[in-house]
């Protein structure tokens, strides 16, 4: 376990501000903080190791927390390679907690319990698409075009949002990060975007959680079933949630709802709570134990999820359940093949591009 740790923020006015440190006697000079920051600016790695002022410091930063760094002072017998996963997990955990509830960050406890948080899950990467309006627009465009030069996509996007300042890179990055789209040079000059996966954001019935409820919380099972039924298949004439309605249908829940569920999924604490509740109903303290986040932070996350009709609370039994299970489902876009054939026939794509597209689809889906 690291001997000491600190959380530092580069503030635009005050410079490096050490927000948390353990032990309290840990002293850090401006030079040491500068060097830690500089190492990260040089490279792209989330974790760096540096020897400064007699200390071996492993430091962690992540794009999601700009300006923030966590430093771990390693013991003489510790080798970063063997603990790097743990270090980045603890670093991410501390930074997430700093962003949610700084007062609850207790470095000593985090080090002792080795509380970690994983990097963004695939579902969270997908959620970013619906939180970046131009990305969602681009995805819709690729549903029809399936393969397109980035120059044409950029022009199309500018015409859609009616602004020259729109940045294709910013719009396409969430699509690339989630693996839905790959951008490559075909030949020497043709930068091309390929749609490799499609995405469906919806609320599924919480099947696993409900089946467990009958075992672990039988007292709530009947009422829990009612909650779920009311949402998915209420008594007529009420209309239940139906994610398969086409998005141009006025009753379609997709457009208005996917941004809401994307917000929940992209928030790491709420996502961890969601994962915990997908397994089975739990109390706040059980979720806290399961996720390592403090109860106060869990409680706030649950309230946010309750407001979006994702979680519900049974006060008497003091247990939280999932009433809808937001999902980001990735699937093979079979429709791309006829579109590609047509585009090839109409000479809208050349044979090199078509061949490369098929190779990429095989690589992506062959496992």
């Amino acid at each position, binding site marked *: 376990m690291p001997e000491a740790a600190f959380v530092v923020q580069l503030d635009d*006015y005050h*410079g490096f501000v050490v927000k948390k440190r353990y032990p309290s006697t840990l002293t850090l000079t*401006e030079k040491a*903080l*500068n060097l830690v920051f*500089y190492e990260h*600016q*040089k490279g792209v790695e989330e974790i760096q190791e540096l020897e400064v002022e007699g200390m071996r410091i492993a430091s962690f930063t992540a794009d999601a927390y700009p300006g923030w760094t966590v430093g771990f002072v390693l013991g003489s017998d510790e080798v970063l390679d063997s603990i790097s996963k743990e270090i980045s997990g603890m670093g991410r955990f501390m930074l997430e907690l700093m962003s949610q509830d700084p007062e609850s960050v207790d470095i000593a406890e985090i080090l002792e319990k080795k509380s970690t948080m994983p990097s963004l899950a695939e579902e969270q990467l997908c959620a970013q698409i619906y939180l970046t309006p131009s990305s969602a627009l681009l995805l819709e465009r690729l549903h029809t075009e399936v393969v397109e030069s980035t120059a044409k996509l950029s022009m199309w996007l500018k015409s859609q949002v009616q602004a020259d300042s729109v940045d294709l890179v910013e719009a396409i990055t969430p699509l690339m990060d989630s693996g839905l789209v790959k951008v490559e040079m075909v030949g020497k000059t043709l930068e091309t975007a390929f749609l490799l996966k499609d995405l469906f954001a919806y609320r599924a019935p919480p099947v696993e959680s409900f089946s467990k409820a009958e075992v672990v919380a039988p007292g709530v099972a009947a009422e829990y079933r009612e909650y779920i039924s009311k949402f998915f298949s209420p008594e007529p004439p009420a209309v239940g949630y139906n994610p398969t309605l086409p998005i141009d249908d006025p009753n379609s829940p997709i457009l208005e709802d996917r941004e809401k569920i994307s917000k929940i999924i992209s928030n790491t604490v709420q996502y961890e709570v969601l994962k915990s509740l997908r397994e089975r109903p739990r109390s706040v303290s059980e979720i806290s134990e399961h996720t390592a986040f403090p109860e106060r932070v869990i409680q706030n996350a649950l309230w946010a999820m309750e407001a979006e009709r994702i979680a519900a609370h049974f006060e008497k039994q003091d247990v939280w359940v999932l009433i809808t299970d937001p999902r980001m489902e990735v699937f093979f876009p079979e429709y791309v093949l006829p579109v590609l054939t047509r585009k090839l026939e109409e000479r809208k794509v050349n044979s090199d591009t078509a061949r490369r597209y098929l190779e990429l689809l095989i690589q992506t889906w062959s496992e």
Partner: protein
Amino acid sequence: MSKLIRSVYILGQEDDVVFSKEYARSESKSDLVEFLVNLAQFLKSVDLEGQTEFMNVSISRIFYAQRDMFTFVFIADKADDTVQIEDKMTQLVDTFMNEFANLATAKQPLDGFDAKVDEIAVTMVKVAILGFAGVGKTTTLHLLRGETLPLVHDPTIGVSIKRLPEEVQNANIVLWDLAGQSRFSILWAKMIANAQVVVIVTDSTLENVLRSKKLVSLVKEEVPEAKVIGIANKQDLPTALTPERVGQILAIPTYELVAIDISYRDRLIQIIRKAILEGKAETRAA
């Protein structure tokens, strides 16, 4: 950034002063408190509907707001930006009502409130000092701080951040002395973020001044709102270009300096003061 708030007062139900803090000398305090008590009594007869209002008194502008039993008052300069001060008032009122109102009602000490008020009310101006290695940036920093120069040259690592001991234009000045070695150039864009004034220091040699044109471009791209000034340092050396020539090449207002000569200190502070004022005027005009 923010404008100056000279003092902050919070009055309670019995028109007692629950909290007060002065950042700059203003009118006689006892007269002022008497005035504020009268103001608080008057405000009880009107409904501000949660808004902040102000009145002009001599060269000052008194901003006031009321929430429940508390009256909040800021004293500021008449020339300062009303909207920004009203924003700060909203922040202060919200912070107090959410976290400290119960303590004040119970006549308990408001632990931690003083620091929160500082965060909201204190005006800070970031002045970044940029230039290539060895041109005298850190010497300029020492000069501004009125410090004795170290005997050994110790190149800056990353950035060195220091405060100016005195206020300039009634604001706290934070000086960011950026390392000039080329390996640290990857930090420059990040480190000058939110600077209101950027001082580009040259050693007045033709080679260095020509190179420094890149810095001017960088600053104009990264912080277009900042006021940029040039410093033609080492004017005591025989090869030094004149400040006029340096300014012509850099295309920014440029001033002469011999950073190792303490007699330049006041002049340099005046230059920064002027840059802050001009920056404020430009922001207002925009």
